């Protein structure tokens, strides 16, 4: 959205393709106009950023070729291959800015496929987009600063029976404080979330280990071990699960980006320069380029747009980029500190029980992956694991099992995570109906 706004303001007529019914990221997701929600209540101090982004986009819609509910399923030969209402078409482009965002990163927990377990992002979307809580008693579990924000959004909207289970210990967060100077405002915000939750009586437990989400056909409780080792169980009918964010990188790969491994985040990201440039007239921005959060995504989108305009020979004001560059890099440094503070519990991959489902699409367990990694079938590498076990081959194409697959493979083989590779993306990046193939020329 931010890139489109900047392009439109400079006289370009951008095409905006969004798989979702509304364009834009999840951080400042547009509230559903058919539901009586107060954006000030949901977005709190971020309200003015939410309002400004969505207002500017709608004011410029007359110059934007806006295509919501449209899936870009491949990038090939200088064209975006899209599908809308079952109709396939191709959109040739002069420049491409990819802003596919991120999903929650998930470390599987026994029982995580039960109805009532949603991703942490989903818990927020249920509220913002559908005006719904994911249950009557919701436990926000995992490791992410968004656990606190989501719990607070639920509490502000009237949910009373909530709990937060954070798998990172408080001392680890203190250790990571050293890096927080990059964004004092955001840090202060985190502390204020903690204070507000405490004042509202929402229990927040840190340093826990999630043991199991229990239930027969739906969630009935979550079992965890406290830092002391003592086991507890909280009765609940919903769990919001998230361990930080995982970039969406499939389209970047199809567009020809190369990738590099970030050891702090234990993830592969498309390589780009300080403007988001990843190739000739090719840009990646937002959380799909590097985890930075909503504010960084807005600045980064605008930055990529300005850089693309320059590359295409459109005059832009000198100095327009430098402020945005420092903002994006400051916010990304801060997110890296946050990622250290809210640890991705990769070490749990080694101890996950063999019968835990890792791939919810293809029903592949941790034991299946370990067995494949142990068999003498050549180099241990995630694409090979995918071919042998089908983990990552299903309808989500590894979006939710991919990080755990890599960690389990690395742990089972005793190899460093960066040596087991990265799941390769293939077109279509999301499932297409067979009828779409018929409409291709």
């Amino acid at each position, binding site marked *: 959205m931010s890139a489109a706004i900047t392009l439109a303001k400079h006289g370009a007529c951008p095409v905006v393709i969004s798989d979702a019914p509304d364009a834009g990221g999840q951080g400042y997701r547009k509230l559903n106009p058919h539901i009586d929600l107060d954006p000030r209540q949901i977005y709190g101090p971020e309200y003015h950023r939410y309002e400004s982004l969505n207002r500017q986009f709608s004011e410029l819609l007359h110059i934007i070729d806006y295509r919501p509910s449209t899936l870009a399923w491949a990038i090939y030969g200088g064209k975006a291959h899209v599908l809308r209402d079952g109709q396939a078409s191709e959109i040739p482009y002069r420049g491409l800015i990819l802003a596919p965002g991120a999903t929650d990163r998930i470390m599987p927990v026994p029982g995580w496929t039960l109805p009532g377990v949603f991703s942490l992002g989903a818990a927020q979307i249920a509220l913002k987009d559908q005006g719904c809580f994911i249950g009557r008693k919701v436990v926000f579990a995992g490791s992410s600063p968004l656990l606190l924000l989501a719990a607070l959004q639920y509490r502000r909207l009237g949910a009373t029976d909530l709990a937060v289970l954070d798998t990172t210990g408080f001392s680890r967060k203190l250790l990571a404080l050293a890096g927080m100077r990059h964004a004092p405002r955001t840090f202060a915000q985190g502390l204020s979330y903690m204070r507000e*939750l405490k004042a509202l009586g929402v229990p927040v437990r840190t340093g826990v280990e999630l043991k199991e989400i229990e239930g027969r056909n739906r969630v009935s409780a979550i079992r965890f071990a406290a830092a002391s080792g003592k086991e507890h169980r909280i009765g609940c009918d919903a769990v919001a699960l998230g361990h930080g964010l995982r970039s969406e990188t499939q389209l970047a790969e199809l567009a020809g980006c190369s990738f590099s491994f970030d050891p702090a985040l234990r993830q592969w990201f498309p390589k780009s320069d300080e403007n988001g440039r990843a190739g000739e007239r090719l840009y990646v921005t937002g959380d799909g380029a590097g985890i930075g959060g909503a504010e960084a995504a807005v600045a980064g989108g605008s930055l990529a747009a300005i850089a693309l305009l320059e590359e295409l020979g459109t005059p832009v004001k000198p100095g327009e980029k430098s402020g945005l560059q420092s903002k994006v890099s400051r916010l990304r440094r801060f997110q890296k500190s946050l990622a250290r503070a809210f640890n991705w519990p990769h070490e749990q991959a080694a101890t996950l029980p063999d019968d835990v489902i890792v791939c919810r699409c293809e029903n592949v367990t941790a034991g299946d992956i370990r067995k494949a990694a142990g068999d003498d079938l050549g180099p241990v590498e995630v694409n090979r694991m995918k071919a042998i076990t089908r983990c990552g081959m299903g309808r989500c194409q590894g979006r939710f099992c991919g990080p755990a697959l890599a960690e389990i493979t690395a742990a089972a083989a005793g190899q460093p995570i960066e040596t087991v590779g990265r799941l390769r993306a293939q077109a279509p990046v999301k499932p297409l109906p067979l009828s779409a193939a018929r409409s291709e020329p």
Partner: protein
Amino acid sequence: MTEPDSSQTDVNGVSDQAELPLLIPAAARTGAIVTFHLDGRRLTAHKGESVLAAALQNGCKLRHSEFTGEPRAGFCLMNACQDCWIWTAQGQRLRACSTPVADGLDLHTRVPGTPDGR
């Protein structure tokens, strides 16, 4: 940090309330009423709601795993996990989280016309 006292830990857990809805409305709907069917039940929703929200305010599943038959009710709500597919009586597959509910939709949590509905 707040440490919950033991009274907040429900040792028995919430009982399995198999047919109670999964999603709980948190705000008033302003869209017009629409009527749809879910597994043969005639239900109402509001314009502006997704198929997922409409179905899960009236039930607790959208589909069944092809492998185990276990119920599933979506996961990511952001078009990524594809675990919210639901079927129409005509055999059309909908991604429930990104499809708006509409008058006359006839939704099925089991694949119509197959022996085990998966």
